[in-house]
Structure formats: C-alpha cells, structure tokens
C-alpha cells in the first residue's frame, strides 16, 4: 500500500472549522484515483492535509505513506518521501526564475545525481512535451503566466521531480482540449511507470482521456461512494444529488 488514509478528520487552525470529516482512502502504486465532488466540498483541503499545510490541523485519524505515519512530518519532508501536489492556483514568487526553482527543487529532493546541464536539458525537453512556452522558464515563478501556462508548469514539475504519488488539484481547469490530452497522456505514461495519482476534479472532461482505476465521490468532507468510471457518468447525468440520496438511504 502506497497511501493509506484512515478516518481522517481535520479543521482549519484559525477558525477551527471542521472540513475533513472522516476520510478513508487506500492507493497502490500505479493506480489512478479520481476524487469528484462539488465546489466547496473540501477536496482541496484533503490534498493540502496530505501535503501537511500548516493551515490545517488533524484532529483524528492517520495518514500512512509506504506504511509509515507522515503525520509529524513537515511539508518538505513529505515531498522528499515522494508526494507531489500540483496546485489548483499555483503561487507567484517574484524575483525567482522558474528554471532555477526547478533545479533547486530537484536538488533538494534527489541530491546531486545529475549535472545542471542534464537537468536543464530535461526541463527543456519536458517543456516542449507539454507545449509549455520555453520563454517562461527564464521568467519568475508563475508571474505573468496565463492560467493554462501555470497548470502546464505544474504538470511539468510533477514529471520532472519524480515523485511516487502525484495529487493533481483541478489540473484540467484552465486548459484547452489539446492540453488536457497532452496532460492525460503524460498521466497514463507515469502511471505505467508505477506512479500513483489522485486526480481531484469536478469536471468529467479529463476522464475522456484518462482511465481511472477508482472513482470516489466526495461530499461534505467525506468519500461517500467509490466505484468505476460508471460512477462519474452517473454524476455527469444526474448530479451529485443521486449519491446524496443513496447515502441517506
């Protein structure tokens, strides 16, 4: 088991509002899990709590990564174990060049196993692959990037930094159809190499291109139902109320 989340409850540190209300989730290497849910249901919070965002505190439950608890680890340590989060809204860091940031991150995660030259070559190749504008590599992190360019930058990092688990938070929003296709083929390719995925979305669109192993329906801080792609189809057709009703039954 790569990731094992047991009855996870968490709240915001500031307002003490409970957002995760008992999440259970098990993921094996190479699996693609989709988490679907309406806006404001706390999907992004789940991603943030897995990654250890200090804005939230866990009140109950456990997160195991490769069978060890990661609850006491800071965000950078979790990244070093191989967890990667692609942000829904990637942040801007003025004054720091994107390519320089990628190299520093790689060095932090994997040490000195490659020369700067090799790393830069790899970055350029990946940029080309996801049709990320190469000029942006020399720009400051996400500053002046379009919404789509920011998302491509995230997937570029996910590939380049070689994690074991990738959480993609609304990666498809802001991307045109061609880019969704490119990103999807990259996800499939990485999954075949054994990298696991959590795909957080509230659109079905990306599922036209990515074949998930499990689809989870996430409502009000919990996974309420899990199944195959047919679950996504059902939601697309009838809305989340279908699941809500089945839940109360």
């Amino acid at each position, binding site marked *: 088991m790569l990731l094992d989340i047991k009855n996870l409850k968490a709240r915001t540190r500031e307002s003490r509002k409970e957002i995760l209300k008992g999440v259970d989730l098990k993921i094996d290497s190479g699996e693609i899990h989709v988490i679907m849910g309406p806006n404001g249901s706390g999907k992004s919070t789940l991603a*943030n709590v897995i990654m250890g965002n*200090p804005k939230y505190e866990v009140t109950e439950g456990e997160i195991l990564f490769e069978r060890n608890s990661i609850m006491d680890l800071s*965000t950078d340590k979790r990244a070093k174990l191989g967890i990667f989060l692609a942000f829904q809204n990637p942040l*801007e860091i003025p*004054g720091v060049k994107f390519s320089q*940031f990628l190299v520093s*991150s790689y060095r*932090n*995660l994997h040490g000195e196993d490659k020369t700067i030259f090799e790393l830069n070559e790899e970055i350029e190749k990946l940029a080309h692959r996801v049709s990320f504008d190469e000029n942006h590599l020399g720009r400051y992190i996400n500053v002046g990037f379009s919404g789509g360019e920011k998302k491509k930058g995230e997937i570029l990092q996910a590939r380049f930094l070689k994690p074991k688990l990738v959480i993609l938070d609304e990666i498809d929003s802001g991307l045109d159809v061609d880019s969704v296709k490119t990103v999807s083929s990259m996800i499939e390719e990485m999954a075949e190499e054994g990298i696991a995925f959590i795909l957080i979305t509230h659109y079905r669109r990306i599922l036209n291109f990515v074949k998930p192993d499990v689809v989870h329906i996430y409502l009000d801080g919990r996974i309420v139902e899990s199944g195959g792609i047919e679950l996504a189809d059902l939601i697309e057709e009838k809305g989340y109320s279908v699941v809500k009703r089945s839940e109360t039954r």
Partner: protein
Amino acid sequence: MKDKLIIDDTKFGFIPRAKPVYKAEPGLTRKIIEEISYFKEEPDWMRELRLKSLQIYNEIHEPRFGVDVSNLDMSRIVAYIKPGALKATSWEDVPGEIKEVFEKLGIPEAERKALSGVGAQYDSEIVYRNIQRKMEKLGVIFLDMESAVRKYPDLVRRYFMKLVPPTDHKYAALHGAIWSGGTFLYVPANVKIPMPLQAYFLMSSPGMGQFEHTIIVAEEGSEVTFIEGCSAPRYNILNLHAGMVEIYVERGAKVKYMTIQNWSKNTYNLNTKRALVEEGGFMSWISGSFGSGKTMLYPATILKGKGASSESISITYAGEKQHLDTGSKMIHLAPHTNSVIQARSISMKGGWTFYRGLLKIGKNAEKSKATVSCTALMLDNESKSDTLPIMEIHNGEVDVGHEARVGRISEEQIFYLMTRGLSESEARSFIVKGFIEPVVKELPLEYAVELYKFIEMEIESSIG
C-alpha cells in the same frame, strides 16, 4: 599572523604626550573641543567650525521625526572622544554573538579585530600604500581626512560642511563639533579611476569611523566608485555613529557611492549624506542598511545643473529590536534632470522599517523625469513597515512615475515552495531574495553574494 594587539598612539593623529583621561565630564564643553582640535594640529578655521557646531548642537532641538534617541548616552561619547582616551577595548569585551557571526562568515582574524574596533587593519596598510602610489600617479588626492586638513587646508576648507552645514540638524552639528577620521578624495578633471576605492583602506586605527567625514570631489569629466563599509558586522565601542558624506559631482563627472552598513545593534546610526551634481553629471547611491539598533539615513542628491542625473538604490533590513528609518531624496533644480529611486525594505522578528523619501521638482526643472519605487516586505506578524514617499512637484512639464507597496510574506507561498522539497528557511530566503532581486542585480557580485549569505543566516536564526 600573531594574535597580538598593538596600540600605537601616533596612528590616532594624537601627539604621544597625550595624557590618559580618567573620568568623563558630564557634557560636551568648549574645552574638550578645543583640546581635540589642538591635538589634531588643526588650522584655525577648523577649530572655529568645531566650536560653532558645538554651539549649534547645544541650541537646536532633536529631529522631530524618525527614531527614538532618548537612550543615547552622551557621557559615554564624551569620554571616548577626549584626546588620550584610548580606544583600546579588548577582544574579550566584544559580544559573543558578534564573534559568532565573524566565525560563520569566515572573516580573517586581523579583520575581525578591526571590525570590532579593537585592532588595526594591518593587512590593509600594504594594500593602501600600493593604492596611494597609483593614485598619486593619476594626480588623485586620496587621504584620511585629518591628514587632508593638515596638508591641503585651503582645498578642504572649500568643501568641508559646505553641502551639509552644521545648522542642517542636531546630529550634523554634533558631527561638526567632534568629527574624526574619514576620507578626502579629490579626482582631477577627466581622470577615470579604474577600480573602486574603499574607505576600508584608510581604517588604520581601532575604533575609527564613528564620526568620520568623507568628501569626494569629482572634477569635470572624471569618474570614481567609492565603497564604504562591508557586510560583516562592525562592533561599535561607542553607541553612536554620526558620519557625514559630501560629494561634489562637477560637469559630466560620474560618482558611484556604495555603502553596506552593518553596525552592531547597540548603535544609533545617524548619518548624513548629500551630493551636488552639476550639468550632465551623474551620482549613484547604493546603500544596504542591515545593522544598528536605530538608523536615520536619507542620502540626498541635488540636481543643480541641466541634464544632471542620479539614482538611489537601497535595501534596508530590520530584525529583532531594530528600527531603521531610511529613504532617498532627490531634488531637481534644473531642466532635463533625471532621477530614479528604488528602495526595498524587509522587516522580521519584530523589526521596523520606515521608508521616508523625498522627490522635489523645482519650478525651473521642466522636462525632468523621475521615478520612485519603494516596496516593503514583512516576514511575520510582529514586524512593522511604513512608507512615506513625499513628492513636491512645482513644474507641470515633468514625467513622474511612482510605486509604493507594503506586503507581508504569504504562508501559502512558503507552503508552495515547501511542497517542492525546500525547507521552511530555504523557502523564506527564496522569497526574500526574489523580493530584492531587482536591486541586487545592480550590486557588484561579491556584494550580492555576501548579502545573500547574510539573509540566509538571519532567516535560519529566526526559525531556529
């Protein structure tokens, strides 16, 4: 080098028969000032200037803005400046935290002593002599101020406190009364000095540079870069630094003045810097203020001649218990004059930065152009930052751009960087370095490297 502290009286510019002084009188008196002047073998005009300054000092009020100076201990300063009062604090008296930083920065032993005011900068003397020889060949006068006053009294008199008179403010008056040390640099017409000159070369005796007076005269068409200070912390035996810099940029000349100030945190740094630029001349101020407990510093340029221009680039950092009140002043008095102000302030661990700047465009300064950009970054919730960029525009035919921003480092930015494997302190220093990047790229490489090292150290210590 052997670790021995040599105190050589002759180096202070005092004659050797000066008797040690055992107890301090309560305040600054005419007698003390006269003594100083006598021991320094000064001409009458200088003695008169000192005495007049003293009188002004006693008469005028404290500045009505800026930092709180109520804890400034004058009696200690009086004891220190009396002739014969040796500046011989011992290495043991230097606070441990400062020694630690020297250790971390890998500063050579002799330099550590000079920086902490307990030893002379031995190594630099050789360097200094070599430079002296080169300068003489070019016809440049590059002397410590005391020697300059004795050797070129009439020349020095033409410039000394003519740009900043003792009536300017209380600490200008104090400076006029008790100044000592500093640099006199006179660059003849069309001479372009190929390497930066450093004030450091002249720091030949311990404790020098607390009330230093620096004059740079760049004659028509000449060019010079002058560097004052360094990023390593300097321990102030006194608790006051009240220096003064006066720069005269003549027609078409270019002067670049760089300062990195890192006085120990017991220091009140009340410094005055001013430049006068004639037609087509260019003045550049590059300032880093990191040390001292309290600072008031507003480098000013007066653009007097047509087509004169100036830039002022500054980085101010205030950490624990620091209040740094800094800013640039640009005064446009002639047509077609240009100025650029770029200021970055950083505060953390409860520090307070205050940007107080002035852009003044006089009524005769048509077709002038000025841009002011002052932004501040606070790294935590205890720290403070203010910006007060004042603009007075008396001519309608000018082009003025202005940007002022104060922001706090966002926890989400830190989280974002940490998800990529950066530790918290790495993430913070990434953001801070990014913030000052537009300014740092104007600095010489070794300054930039030292500056980054300094920031990393401060941030690491704040996270612990």
